[in-house]
Structures are given as C-alpha cells and as structure tokens.
C-alpha cells in the first residue's frame, strides 16, 4: 500500500547566505535565531531568546544585499536567497558608536558597579572595541530604589532594553514593570511609578534581575563585582518558552 500523501508543511524551509556561507532555516525564523543557532556572533542587548522582540538596541543591525537600508536581525524573518552581512566595517563603526552613546547616557562606571565582570554592556563594549567614549558624558543623577526587600533598582545603570518589562509580563504574568516618560527621560517603573517595595503586583520572583543585562536590577546586599547571575536561568527561560 502506498504511503498516505504528505500534508504540505505549513512552514517552508529556505536557504540563505550569511557572511559568505550558506545556511538552511525555517521561513518563520529570524536572522538572529539562525545566527545564534550557527554560532555566528551578532551583538544585541535587548534581544533575549524566550521573550518577545523589542528591536530597540539596534546593535543587531545587518546589511542585506540589494538593500541600502539596514535590517535588525532580531525582527527580520529570513527569506529564500537572502544574502546577509553581519560584520562589515560600517556595521562595526555603527555598533561602536551606539555602545558609546549608551555609556554616555547614564552612569556606567564599571569599577564600582555590582555587575562588574558580569555585565553584558561591558562585554559588548569589549567586543565592539570601545576603548574610549567620544561623546560627552551627560552626568545626570538618577534615583536608586532600594525599597524592595530582596532587590534593588539603579536607574543610573539602566539601558532601557525592557527585558525586565517583557519577562515580567510574558513569563511571570505580573506586568509589574513598565516604561514611563519620553526620550532620555524614560524610566522603567514598577506599578504606577510607586516604589518597588510597595508594589501590589510584584511576586518577588526575581526574573527581572536575572534578565537585566547590566547592574540596574540586582540582589540586595551585593557590592562591586558581586552580582552574579544564575547561569541556569536563561537556558531554562528559553526552553520553557519554546515548549509552549
């Protein structure tokens, strides 16, 4: 008896070229997913496997053959025959400038930071070759919220990647975090900008602390360089998300 005719797959498989090499991918995957799967380094600070796409840090921008504008690898789905360059001289220059802009925006002084040595912004600067910052530091003093019994929020070290907002909303389901304000006045807030310790919605799960790329969200009682993330957290987050 002949086998039953296969039902057509709902998602197609495509072949694309990244930095001169061919890769296969499902058509519903984004460029960054294909790159991560194949160990092609793509810098990003807001993207996190398991959370929704934000496309705000602009570090994962890539060049595409035949297109003059750049595409964010995290929010661009692959297509058949797509030719992507992830690390051109132009992209390197832009990434370096963006990291410099982030450093100058708030107060990122690594030597006194609780996350020194465990900070994604710090790694990013090293990877992008930022040895000094050409734009003037803005020297704005922001508040620190220590009202929560277990965690601390330091706006001076926040890069507004909104990973905390998304993990709290999408994984924990509490939606304690949100963003208020405009432009550089933007701040992540708990509830309606009340102190974190007074939040009615916060479950104290600490997911936001685990996903924070910098030293903005940390455990209470940590001192310089002591804020080390739980190395099992992010893989679990991604696995649980994909299992859904």
């Amino acid at each position, binding site marked *: 008896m002949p086998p039953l005719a296969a039902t057509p797959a709902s998602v197609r498989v495509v072949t694309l070229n990244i930095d001169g090499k061919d890769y296969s991918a499902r058509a519903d995957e984004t460029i960054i997913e294909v790159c991560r799967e194949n160990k092609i380094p793509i810098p990003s600070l807001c993207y996190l496997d398991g959370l929704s796409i934000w496309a705000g840090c602009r570090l994962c921008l890539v060049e595409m053959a035949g297109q003059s504008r750049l595409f964010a690898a995290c929010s661009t789905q692959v297509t058949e025959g797509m030719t992507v360059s992830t690390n051109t001289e132009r992209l390197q220059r*832009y990434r370096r400038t963006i990291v410099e802009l982030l450093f100058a925006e708030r107060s990122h002084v690594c030597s006194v930071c609780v996350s020194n040595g465990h900070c994604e912004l710090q790694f990013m600067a090293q990877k992008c070759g930022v040895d000094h910052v050409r734009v003037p530091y803005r020297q704005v003093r922001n508040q620190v919220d220590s009202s929560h019994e277990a965690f601390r929020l330091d706006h001076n070290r926040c890069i507004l990647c909104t990973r905390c907002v998304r993990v709290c909303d999408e994984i924990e389901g509490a939606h304690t975090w949100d963003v208020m304000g405009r432009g550089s006045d933007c701040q992540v807030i708990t509830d309606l900008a009340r102190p974190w310790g007074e939040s009615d919605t916060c479950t104290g799960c600490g997911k936001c602390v685990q996903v924070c790329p910098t030293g903005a969200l940390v455990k209470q009682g940590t001192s310089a360089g002591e804020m080390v993330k739980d190395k099992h957290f992010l893989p679990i987050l991604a696995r649980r998300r994909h299992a859904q």
Partner: protein
Amino acid sequence: MNIDDIDELAQKHRDKYAGIETEVRVCMATSCQSSGAPLVFEALTGAQKAQGPGTCRVKGVGCMGLCSAGPMVAVAKKDEPPELEVLYREVKPEDAADILASVGGAPVARIHFPTDAPFFTRQQRIVRENTGIIDPESFTGYVAVGGYRSMVQTLTEMTPGAVVAEVTTSGLRGRGGGGYPTGLKWSTIAKMPVGQKYVICNADEGDPGAFMDRAILESDPHRVLEGMAIAAYAIGANKGYVYLRAEYPLAVERVETAIRKAKRAGFLGNHICETQFNFDVEIRLGAGAFVCGEETALMASIEGNRGQPKPRPPYPAESGLWGYPTLINNVETFANITSIIRNGGEWYAGIGTERSKGAKVFALAGAISNIGLIEVPMGITLREIIEEIGGGIPNGKAFKAVQTGGPSGGCIPAQHLDIPVDYDSLKTLGTIMGSGGMIVMDETSDMVDVARYFMEFCMTESCGKCVPCRTGTQQMHGLLDTIAKGQGTHKDLALLEELCEVVQATSLCGLGQTAPNPVLSTLRFFRDEYEQKLIAE
C-alpha cells in the same frame, strides 16, 4: 439611495435658501477665532437681524487661507466662484454695519483685500474647494455643493476594484509626507483576504509650522469622512478611526459633529444609503506625542498602548490595528478622494507633474508677507510660491532659506528657488515634501540655530525606544548647542556629522531616521555659518 436622491437632498437645501442672494461669510477656523472672529460674527448677525429679513445671510465658514490677516470676512453672491467675492481683512466688530451696508455697492475700502492678488489667482483649489464657502457644521450645506455624491456613486454604481483603479489612475501619492502611491496602498489591502479590516485617518499633524490638516478638518470635515468611507468600500473595511491630536479642540468638535450628523442621515453606520455597506467612524484623540504620527506608533496608541513604533515589516497593510489589515492615510489624502471619484482619475492625473500628480496644500509661515494656507498644483516653483503667492519677504529683508518637511526635512537656499515642488525634486536637495509646512526665513535667521531648534524638537519627541534616536538626538543637540554658542571645535563638527550618519542609518522609525536631516541640509548649504562659529583647537 441613489444619485437622484442625493441630488434631491441637495436641491432641498438650496430651496431652503432660495431667497438669499448674498452671503456674508465669516471665517470661524482656529486662527481667525483667535484674532476675534466670534465677536465679528456676533456683530454681523446682530446688525443683520436689526436690518430685518432680506436677501442677505451671515454664515460662519472655514478657513479662507490668509490666516495672518484674520479675522477674514467675505461677501459673495451665492453661486459665484470665490474669485469674485469681496474680501475683508482684519475685520473688527465695528465694521459690521459698514460691511452690510456695502452689500451690492462699493466695498468698504479701508479693510478691503483685493482678490485679484496672486495669492488667490495662482491657487488651484481641489481639497480646499469648499473651505471658506460652506458652513462646516452643516450636513446639508455640504450635500448642497455636491458632497457625498461621490460616495453614493461608488456605493451604487462602482465595484470596489473600479474605485481602486480610479485612485491608481489618478496618480495620487500620500500627502502625509512619505509620498507612497495611494492606489498601490489601497490595492494591497484590498487584496488581503476578506475579513476584518480598518481604515485610519492620520490627523496627528505635528510638524512645527504646519496646519493644513487642521484647516481641512475645521472647514470641510465631511469631505474627509466621505473619502474614508470610499476607501473603506474599496478595501472592504467596516470600521474607521480618525486619530486626531487633542491640541486641535475645534477640529475635534467639528469632526464629532460631522460624524454625528452623517450617522443620523444614514451616511455612516450600518447599511449606508440603503446598501449592504457598513462603515462606522470613531475619533481617537492623540495625547500630544509627535511620534504617534508614525503609523505603527499611531496604531499602538489607538490600541491603548504606549505610543511607540514597531519594526516594519509587517506593514500595516498586512498586520495593522490589532493585527488586522489596516489602511492609514493622511487627512489631505482622504480629502482628495471625493474630487477624484467625481471628476475621474484621468482628470486628476492631468494636474501636476509626471511623477507627482494633483495639487498640494502648503502652510506658509515665518518671514513671509502672506502667512496662511495655499493649494497649488505640483510642479510650481518655490520662487512662485514665495515671491508671488506668498508676497515675498516683509520689511525689506532678503530671502535666505525655506524649510520644508518639518523636523524630517531640510532648508533650501536662494540659489535653488527655481526647483519645481514635487516629491522627487525636493529629495534631490536633501529635503522632503513632508506634510506641507513651509517656513520661510530671512537674512536674519541663524542656520545653526535653526538646526538646533529642530534637533531639540526631535530630542524631546523621541519616544525613547531605540538607542540611536533617544541618546543620539540628545548628543547631537548638545553638540549643536556648543557650536551655536561659539564654543565648538572642528572635532565637535566632525563628531556631529558622524552621529548624523549613525542615527540616520540605525534608528528604528522615521522620526530617528530623519532627525539628522535639518542638520545635514544646513551643513550642505550653509556650512560656512557652522565654521564661522568654531574655535581653533
């Protein structure tokens, strides 16, 4: 309802005012109201009442265009073209008796404004054909000048495909600034599978110095609703939103009135004009964010979320409001539709240039004699607009530059004044058509200061989502400020230029991508002004 029924409705309105020979029209749009039009209107109606019923009617109308000379009053024989009317400028309540007494005789010389000036004769009124003539709060007044006839015609005589084809033939391009072909946008959404679709009218006009959409909504709101309804029929939508900024309270009020009256007359809602077509319109107020004029941020705002842009694709045509296919067009784009259906796409395509069809409304502001709104055919030169229609630069000053396209545009210097105004020519000069704001600057303007002003605007209006726009505009503003104060170095200028490139290339939405334009264009044409301010290292 068919064409004959609507013609009958129009005739009824005309019969009602059959005894009226002359109309005294008082501009009741925002700018004239702010200079005292309501008092003038009161005085005129009072004086007219005192005269007793006659052949003259005092009527509140929309914008007459010459906003700097308000309050404006026009006296016109009822069915005469606007060129023949007698126009009065800066009218005071005391002038009311004289104006009424002059009807049929010689105009009141001291406040008379000649309508044979180029400001009036060089215009081509399509979108603004009724503004300043009809009462924006009267539904039947709009029907009497042929309003809703195009809608009834499309609903009863045309297929959706034929409507899209007509708009495509017209060559109309989006009037909000991008210049995307309207017919192409409509056909894309029409081709999406049948199901829930939305129509959005983008009335979040936020460019400094631009007030075209406000005037259209305040002067002829039904025209926009009619355009939206025709669009909805063409693409298969049943729900529309007018996203209107709350800073335009009068426009909000008039659009609300228009929606209410159109619904009551059966021209919006279910089974419009006894057909199977349903279309309902609601207003959504913008809370003052410039970025909400960007379509993805606008839709987020309508959904009740924070007004922040999302990466495109997916484009709204595919996945827009609440994930459904959505058509977003600007106020002026919708306002063109009724004329295109009435006169045909070919007619519209006959106006303007090869790649930019029709006419465009511009808001003249700044150092120019005739501040106000004009509608001119595409392809007219900037020189004609500024020197003839605009009446040149006041106080004997020399022209220096004209800024088009708001914070996303650039400055055009005197040597390029003969360029035709169309989407593509303006692009070659590093600026854009934009929504239609034109800010004219005379020789006293400091171009570094101009760039700093626009950068400050973008900095405060950045939503804060993406890093280059949020922090880049701030750093660029800081550098421009340093240079403007005479403390900048050559290194600062080089850094500024580099930041311009990075912000332009890497920002998430149009606001950030175009924020450097005012700097780049002033650097291109007025680099010496920057360099004069630099200090040696």
